[in-house]
């Protein structure tokens, strides 16, 4: 009994023509067009599989699970999709932290539905990863063992209600800027998953934006709460785009395979340019004294995030890494008797049906 009772303010970030949601829709149209064009029927019996793979990718067609693909392509996708799925699951924690204390019933419903969406994204992405020949259970175990990562942004704490707004505006905003190009990824199941995820994420971003907008135009205490949240989340959000291009280990090959389409720094710039305008409407200040328009570059100059901090957080020493992992491990361990019971019950039912048949 919950509907879409969220009303976007007139200044909602996605409503600008050519906004991010428009790009998601364009990617979806492209995907349909590519499917309609059809690929040349599979490789000839004596054809070089690698050459066929390259031809499909070059023609902006999608690689599908049944296709041959280079091992490294498969490994890269598993790593990336799994990391993305883990991020959705771990990312439920910082925002879930405020469900019980949400300051109105409407906000409580919106936040609960949002965190639920993230669980849905996680499931959807695990399913996409499974098309590459690895099971969800294996992936979950890799996360619990600390052998696969999740986005480091979720290792920061949510200290006030405004953090829920800042996560929506900045973290979801950065995620969308990162993910919109993935809607055109060469691997079909991932591209299709990302189209769906991006649509929901852009809705989440608007909700976060609206929370901050309400706070920034509320009481002085609420405005201070909003500014404090933006102050704390701005640089970690910039760091979400990864290390500067020169230091990025995975970029070049991923670009060639059309898994990745833009460099970390290009996406980061795009995010900054998008946020500056929105911050003005919101009535909050981006905490960067050197932020200014550069006429020559037609983009904003800005202060880089602290990449040493990013590396520390990635390697496990962020404010909440230990808590986030402990929480996930505890939930998994506490649920084991329930999962075992469900399996035992299902087995008994199967036996009964066999006996009956």
């Amino acid at each position: 009994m919950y509907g879409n009772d969220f009303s976007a303010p007139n200044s909602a970030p996605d409503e600008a023509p050519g906004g991010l949601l428009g790009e998601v829709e364009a990617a979806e149209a492209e995907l349909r067009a590519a499917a309609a064009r059809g690929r040349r029927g599979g490789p000839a019996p004596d054809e070089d599989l690698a050459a066929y793979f390259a031809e499909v990718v070059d023609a902006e067609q999608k690689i599908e699970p049944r296709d041959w693909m280079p091992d490294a392509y498969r490994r890269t996708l598993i790593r990336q999709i799994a990391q993305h799925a883990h991020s959705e699951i771990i990312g439920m924690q910082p925002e879930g932290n405020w469900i019980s204390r949400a300051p109105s019933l409407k906000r409580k419903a919106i936040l609960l539905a949002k965190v639920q969406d993230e669980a849905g994204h996680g499931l959807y992405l695990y399913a996409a990863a499974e098309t590459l020949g690895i099971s969800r259970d294996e992936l979950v175990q890799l996360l619990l063992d600390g052998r696969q990562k999740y986005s480091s942004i979720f290792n920061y704490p949510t200290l006030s209600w405004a953090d829920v707004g800042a996560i929506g505006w900045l973290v979801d905003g950065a995620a969308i800027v990162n993910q919109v190009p993935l809607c055109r990824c060469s691997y079909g199941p991932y591209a299709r998953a990302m189209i769906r995820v991006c649509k929901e994420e852009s809705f989440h971003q608007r909700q976060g934006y609206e929370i901050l907008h309400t706070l920034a135009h509320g009481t002085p205490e609420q405005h201070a709460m909003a500014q404090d949240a933006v102050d704390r989340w701005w640089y970690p959000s910039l760091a979400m785009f990864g290390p500067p291009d020169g230091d990025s280990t995975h970029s070049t090959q991923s670009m060639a395979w059309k898994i990745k389409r833009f460099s970390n720094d290009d996406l980061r710039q795009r995010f900054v340019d998008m946020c500056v305008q929105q911050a003005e409407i919101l009535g909050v200040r981006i905490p960067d004294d050197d932020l200014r328009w550069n006429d020559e570059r037609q983009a904003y100059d800005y202060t880089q995030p602290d990449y040493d901090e990013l590396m520390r957080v990635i390697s496990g020493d962020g404010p909440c890494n230990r808590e986030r992992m402990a929480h996930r491990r505890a939930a998994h361990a506490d649920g084991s008797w329930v999962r075992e019971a469900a399996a035992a019950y299902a087995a008994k039912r199967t036996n009964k049906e066999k006996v009956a048949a």
Partner: protein
Amino acid sequence: MGWLTCERANQSAQQRGDGVNGPFDFTLALADDALIAAQRLAEWTTRAPEMEEDIALANIALDQLGAARLLLSYAGELEGAGRDEDALAYLRDDRQFRNVLLVELPNGDFAVTMAKLFFLAAYQLPLYTALAGCADERLAAIGGKARKESAYHLDHGALWVKRLGDGTEESHRRMQAAVDHVWPYTHELFAADPAAPVDPATLRPAFDEVVGPVLAEATLTRPGSAWAPAGGRAGVHSEHLAYLLAEMQVLHRAHPGAKW
């Protein structure tokens, strides 16, 4: 379904014409059941035994919260004192809450949560179904919407009671303990209230009809204890509710008059 009589509701709707609040207390009681159930269920978010279950519990919590909001808003209108859903949810103390004790009990393990969910749904389904046939149009509309959701909650709860009851040795032990723990609190659900739009006492047969077979199939024993804690409808709660409210209301109360 013969037990769904709504004559009383018709009478009370007619009586309301003379300025009496009529179903205010009743509406508030249902609203509080749903709100507190939602708050407890939402505590499972990020903690459920499976990702699918995390989503399912959030779904049920959202259903309860949605029903609570409609009922609270209507209760506020019936009262006519200018209180909206948030004023009623955030600015009352525990002594003014009218929910049954069952919904405020801590979640416990997954079996306790499923026992609470199952028993609550087995009560809410006939309740909302009866409400849907009421003369009070607003309550009837809410009942009509909520009963479909309750049917799903009941399915979900019943399935888990069976899975856990007839699963492993450990799950059976835990599920029986959960039923033993929660069962005494079910009696309060059916305390007679002849003046209410739907007298809860009339819902007991429907509840028993659903619960008996599920417990039997789950190889669980229905407890015989005569202990029947109550008091929630009169605002006399367990020690747990004040903590739940303290957490739920803290931010709203810290900023009097603020918009969110």
